[in-house]
């Protein structure tokens, strides 16, 4: 078990390193410089600035320097905000993103689960068609469309929830909902299909033949088995949420990582772009790791030690 964790951790670090390297060089290909209106700066000023941020050095040296400071946990300083370190910006920004992302994932998974279960138990009924329709809509309409619609109807017309900004818990609800739409749709569809499959299995008949209640059959036997493949979906769904935050945070003016990322890309704030990318990658790799562990917990046939049991 310990060996497994150590191995996984090693792989995770290597993955992160590769991502950092690729992003670093890709970023150098971005047109423009981190400075606004560089044509207004005199040659001397530019030189001074380049000197200050180390941009006058060859890219390879810059890369080595970056990785070296990265190892010590230092992500550099921002170009955009005078005198602020990337570590500081990230730690400030991660909170709101994590909160809405987490809420979206949990709510989306639970709502999707409920929808999928109802759908499968009332197969080919009005309820089933209703939830399938919801799921298809949720899959095919991008979350920012829902975000804009919610903002207009719930935020402006009805005034139930604040339309944007970040000043309290009620401000987190709409962004989370907008993000959760894809999750609900995906989980609902998956659970429905899996449950229909499990419903036809012999062991469900065995369970019924034992005389246990229908509720026990559904939750202990059907859902328990149907949920396994859905757990694998959590990884990709977490990614969908992360990429979703880029747009959703912008729409709702949430001071999160995504909003910062879009802002930084626009002004070539190299170190912040690197920092946010690193953050996202680390989160994603972490989620995949957790999903793998969960898989072993939820499905006894899979042993995370990597041994094959017969």
């Amino acid at each position, binding site marked *: 078990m310990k060996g497994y964790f150590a191995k996984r951790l090693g792989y995770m670090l290597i993955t992160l390193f590769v991502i950092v390297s690729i992003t670093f060089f890709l970023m150098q290909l971005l047109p423009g410089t981190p400075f606004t209106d560089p044509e207004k700066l005199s040659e001397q000023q530019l030189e001074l600035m380049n000197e200050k941020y180390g941009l006058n050095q060859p890219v390879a040296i810059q890369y080595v320097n970056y990785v070296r400071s990265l190892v010590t946990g230092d992500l550099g300083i921002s170009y955009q905000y005078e005198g602020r370190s990337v570590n500081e910006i990230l730690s400030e920004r991660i909170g709101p993103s994590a909160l809405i992302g987490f809420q979206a994932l949990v709510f989306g998974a639970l709502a999707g689960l409920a929808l999928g279960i109802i759908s499968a138990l009332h*197969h*080919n009924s009005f309820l089933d068609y209703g939830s399938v329709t919801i799921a298809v809509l949720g899959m095919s309409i991008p979350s920012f469309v829902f975000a804009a619609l919610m903002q207009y109807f719930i935020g402006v017309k009805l005034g139930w929830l604040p339309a944007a900004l970040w000043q309290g818990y009620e401000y987190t609800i709409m962004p989370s909902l907008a993000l959760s739409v894809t999750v609900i749709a995906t989980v609902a569809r998956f659970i429905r299909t899996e449950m229909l499959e499990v419903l036809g*299995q*012999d*062991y469900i*008949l*065995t*369970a*019924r*033949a*034992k*005389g*246990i*209640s*229908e509720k*026990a059959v559904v939750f*202990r*036997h059907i859902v*328990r*088995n149907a949920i*396994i493949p859905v757990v694998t979906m959590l990884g990709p769904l977490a990614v969908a949420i992360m990429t979703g935050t880029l747009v959703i945070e912008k729409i709702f003016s949430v001071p999160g990582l995504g909003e910062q990322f879009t802002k930084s890309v626009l002004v070539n704030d190299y170190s912040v772009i690197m920092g946010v990318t690193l953050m996202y990658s680390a989160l994603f790799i972490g989620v995949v790791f957790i999903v793998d562990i969960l898989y072993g917990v*939820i*499905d*006894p*046939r899979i042993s995370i030690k990597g041994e094959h*049991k*017969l």
Partner: protein
Amino acid sequence: MEDTILKIDNLHVSFKTHNDGETKAVRGVSFELKKGETLAIVGESGSGKSVTAKSLMRLLPKQNSMIKDGQVFYEGKDLLKYSIKEMQKIRGSEISMVFQDPMTSLNPTMTIGKQIMEGLRKHQAFRKKELFKKAADLLELVGIPSPMERMKDYPHQFSGGMRQRVVIAMALACNPKVLLADEPTTALDVTIQAQILDLMKDLQKKTGTAIIIITHDLGVVASMAQRVAVMYAGEIIETGTVDEIFYEPKHPYTCGLLLSMPKLHAARSTKLIPIPGIPPDLGQLPEGCPFAARCPYVMKVCHSFSPSKTEVSETHSVSCWLEDERAPQVEWIDGAGGSIDERKRKVD
């Protein structure tokens, strides 16, 4: 009536098909089961054996199946009139079922122990420790070594034969009075088959459970059952004691089944005689006897009218026109060497 525990009367079960059609899977099945006896239901695939058994437990899928007519009396009460809640009390505690494929009939994500205890907890008020003890005892009863440790194992850690033992332990957990075994040995290899059958016989001796064993293996019938019901196209065409069915079969189909079975002591040159043709489509049944199209002794009347049940003896009855007093006498062809043409006799 005293010693009859289960009585099925005129059971009709149908399935809805896609284009609003109806497949009549079970058509007027009636039989009785006495306390402690073993009844075998034999027949080929699709003859309605499993559907009959599942109907008794009311385990058929609600959406596309319907019990159209008939009664299932368990200790004098009609199970078909029971609510789902009442039925749940019967399932597992009074009537249990063992299914065909032990590889798929256990929940892969639940430990063996939990799966056994699940039924026990529902039907018998046990404390947790007693429950565990009782479940382990059951595992020991069905011959699983070191039951205490194996309780925590998952089905994939058991072999096929072991799993079937577990399934039987589960079925017998609450001392049911009737055990429905739906092809319990079909998916197992021959040596394990024998072990499982021995186990079932052994347990029956200890508990006095009445068993309905569904099979298409006449060898299983011979070793397990006292009485046999032969099913064809959703009907019981012949029933009798094992001796009556094996040595004095009256229905050409029963006879065909026996001729198509290999015998250990027969000469090597003995050819098995298959029954030609296939069973009729249960969605579009022909008029008359369903076996008429395949019957070597077919008469004109067979194509127009269904034969009625004839009592050959107190225990033996058959549904065939050959038993009618107007029918010609038929000489049964002996197993050896008879071809299909030889079996045909001019009977019209």
